[in-house]
Structure formats: C-alpha cells, structure tokens
C-alpha cells in the first residue's frame, strides 16, 4: 500500500485512506485471478560481484 500511495501522490491524485485500501484490495484480488505466479526475469545480476568487491 505504501508504494501505491507514493504513485498516487506523485501523480497529484489525492485519495483518502479508505479508498486507497479498497483500491489495494481490488488490485490484489485481480492479481490473484489473472496474475502470473512466476517471478519476472531480473536483469543480469551483478549483486554477487558487488558483494565480492565489498568483501575485499
């Protein structure tokens, strides 16, 4: 929900918390019906490399 609030406030749309929560629940309900359970592909990760560099 915090992420959703950010997006909406960035767009200049003001919504009360109750409406926001209803939107959030709707999104979740729809996502669970039509969403894809696989995690999206991440870009080639250089996290491990950064960790190795930070360790040294």
């Amino acid at each position, binding site marked *: 929900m915090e992420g959703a609030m950010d997006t909406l406030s960035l767009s200049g749309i003001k919504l009360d918390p109750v409406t926001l929560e209803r939107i959030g629940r709707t999104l*979740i309900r729809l996502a669970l019906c039509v969403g894809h359970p696989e*995690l999206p592909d991440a870009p080639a990760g250089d996290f491990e490399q950064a*960790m190795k560099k930070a360790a040294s």
Partner: protein
Amino acid sequence: MTVHALPPTIAGLRYLLANRWLSASEALDAQVAHLQAHAERYRCVTHLFGKPARIVEGGLLSGVGLAHKDIFDTAERRAGCGRLQGRPGLPAAGAATAIRRLESAGAAHLAALTMAEYACGATGETWPALQPVNPLDPELAVGGSSSGSAVAVAAGLCYASLGTDTAGSVRIPAATCGILGLKLTHGLVPADGMYPLAPSLDSLGILARSSPDAALVLASLGHDAHRALRFAAASDDGIAHHLLTQALPRIGSVMAPDVLDSDIAAALQEFIASLGKDKVVPLAVPEMQEMSRCAETLLHVEAAHQHWDRLRHRREELRPGTRAVTEPGAAIPALWYREALARRAAYVERVADQWFGAADIVLAPAMPLPLPDWSEVHTASPSFNPRRLLAMHSWMPFVNYLGFPSIVFPVGVDARNRPVSVQAIARPHGECALLAFAYRIERERYGKHGFAAPAEHVLVQQQADQKATYA
C-alpha cells in the same frame, strides 16, 4: 548423587567435557531434561527431538544442546514453519545443510522452536498456544519471526539457536530478549532445507547469550571465510583468544538521534562515548528509505510467489500477519520488482565505498523506540499501536537488501530497565569482526557469563561426589 549447574556458556561446558568432569552423554541428558521441564512455561518449543541416538565425540560442539527455529527440515521431520499443526510428512531432501553441519560438529538438535507463521512477522504473534513468553518480563513483546529462538536462548533452555533473518527476524527477537543476534552475510550458508520467505533477502542467523558461543556455532557452519575461527576453536579457549586478538576495528556510526526516542538516544550516545572520544566516525546511510522500499518490494513479491497457491485457493488458512506480507506482492508490478533487483549492486558498491573506506564496523540503532509491551504491538489488542510495530523493524530491511552481516546486542537499559541494543554492520564475510567487537563490549559491560545470564540454570546430576564443583 550430586547436583550441579551446568556452566552458562558453551566455553564453560567444553572445559568440563575436555577435562572429563562430565561426559557428553551426561551433559545432553541434563539439557534434554531441562528443556522438557521448562518448555511449557515459555511456550517456545513446537517439537522435542530429545537426545540423539548417536553422540558425535570430539567435535567443536560435542555435548552441546542447541534448538532451532522451526524453519529447518531435519532428517526425520519437515519444518513446521509456525503452523499450528506443523507440516506433516518427511522432507524431500533430508536435513537442511546448516543443521547437518552443526550435527557433524557434534551439536545435538534438541528441539524445534516457535516462530511467526512462515517467518512473517516483526513479533512472535501467533496462535495463543504457540506465542512465546519473554523471560525478561511476560508483558514484554517478543520480536519475530525467530521468536522461540530468542526466548529459548534467553531463558537458558539451550546454548544457542539458528534463526533466519529476511527483514530483521533474528535481530529483532534478540533485541527484545536482551541477547545477541547475528545475521550472517547473505548466501554464507546454503539455504537448502530452510523454508524460504524471500530468497534474495533470506539470511541465516545465530542467537546466543555470549559472543564466543555464537562464534563456535559460526565456526561449525563451515564457511571458508571463517577457517581461522574454526582452527582457533579446536582448543578450549581458542575462540575467546581469537576474538580478543583481532585488530581493534575502525568504528563508524549512522545513528540519527532525531529519529530516536530520547531514552534510546541517551543509552546509545553513552555507549558511543564509552568507545573513546573522537574514535567513532560519523557516517550516513545513503538513501536508506529507498533501499528499505526496494527490500520491501522484494519481500512482498517473493513471499507472494512462495505462497501463490495458498493465496489463490486457501487464503483463509493463513494468519493475518502472513497475508499482510504476501498479499501486496501479488499486485506489485513486475517492473518495480525488476527495478529493486537492478539497483541492488549499485547500492552495495555505494554504501561499501562510503562506509568501509573509513570504518570496519558501522553502528546503527537496533530499534528507535523502547521495547514495547505485547498490548502495544499485538494486532488483536485494543491498544494496538501500528507505529510501535513498524518501529521494531525500521532499521533492519536495508541491511538485508545490501546482504551485509549485522549483529545486535544490548548496551544499556531504558527508563523501565529494559534492554537497549545497538546494531553493528560489517562488510560481507565480516562476521568475525562483529563478534570480536561484541565480545569486547560483553566483557567490559556484562562480565564472563555473556550478555544475559540464563533465566533458568541447567542442573546436572552426577554419581561421583568427588568430581569438581563448578556451579
């Protein structure tokens, strides 16, 4: 028949075993009986394994009883993951690597310990029958999700415990029970057999009352980065000596007094002042809020992925805390998830550059507010205060996002005489530096029995009266 108390630390127990004043079998009998006698009082045990059929002699942890968060598969039982009825059946691939390594070192896995369901929760809130009791004060909340681990260690029901930390789940419970909690470097120990919450953030952790005890467990987990520690551990007092002979670290601090409760700020400032005037370099966490948001995004999406079938078809089976972590992940756009992953390496490089050029260890708050009562952070309580609950983990997830090791341990008390803990963070594989630092503080402030004396002492009966007294 003579009755003695077992020493409060593993080092003390190893001394008795090495001098043959006690056998590993006698020590384990006493620890099992003790755990059985007190498990109900603290509600921290979900399954008792008891004394192992085969006792490994000569290992670093021979004769030492440990109990772990119920998130690890064992050869004979699937992890219960904080479910009321556990998860029936045998694990597909045997025991978790972490458990196997400790058992190879001679440790006895005495019990599986309570936890927030599926590791979702900054407190140990769960079904009443499984909700652990804080040995410091029954009114005081127990942090989660490795809640049973913190309670069992603080109560003295075991010497140390493995937990898991995805967004503070080792460090928060340790802080609420006044003991040490060490989150290991992400990926230090293979995660197989450890039920995942969010694999890109999940880390193994160790809860203990004393730094050398945690170091012995770390040495037994067998990563090459800690070969020197393992070598030192071979002799009785080798671990303590190894920790004390580490070079004094350069210390930095990212304390932000303006976001801390005045009591907490005063205790932490006193601690920093005690380290020496001008010895602590002021640093900052670059974009902490952004890193925390990225961690949150990874947590929600991966947790939703992990529990997708349950969310779609059996949502009512999940506790509210589990739903609060998993459900938002179903609706978070894939783009946000990819972005959170893509930014990670740059943040690691940036923070490492800013911090570790000037310091070996960076101090941060563990919790910005005093430890709460259950009545303030239990979501079913009439006086539930979400701000207090959020504060419990506000300084935690960015460390998981970076993948760095981190330790919390008590350094003072607040106005209600409850522990105030500090958090210390090091570069990847810097666990030994963290434990060495913690051990210096432990000795200076708490004496030889560790950060906390066990609430209950293990009593052992011996046949021979002439054996040394070591109570």
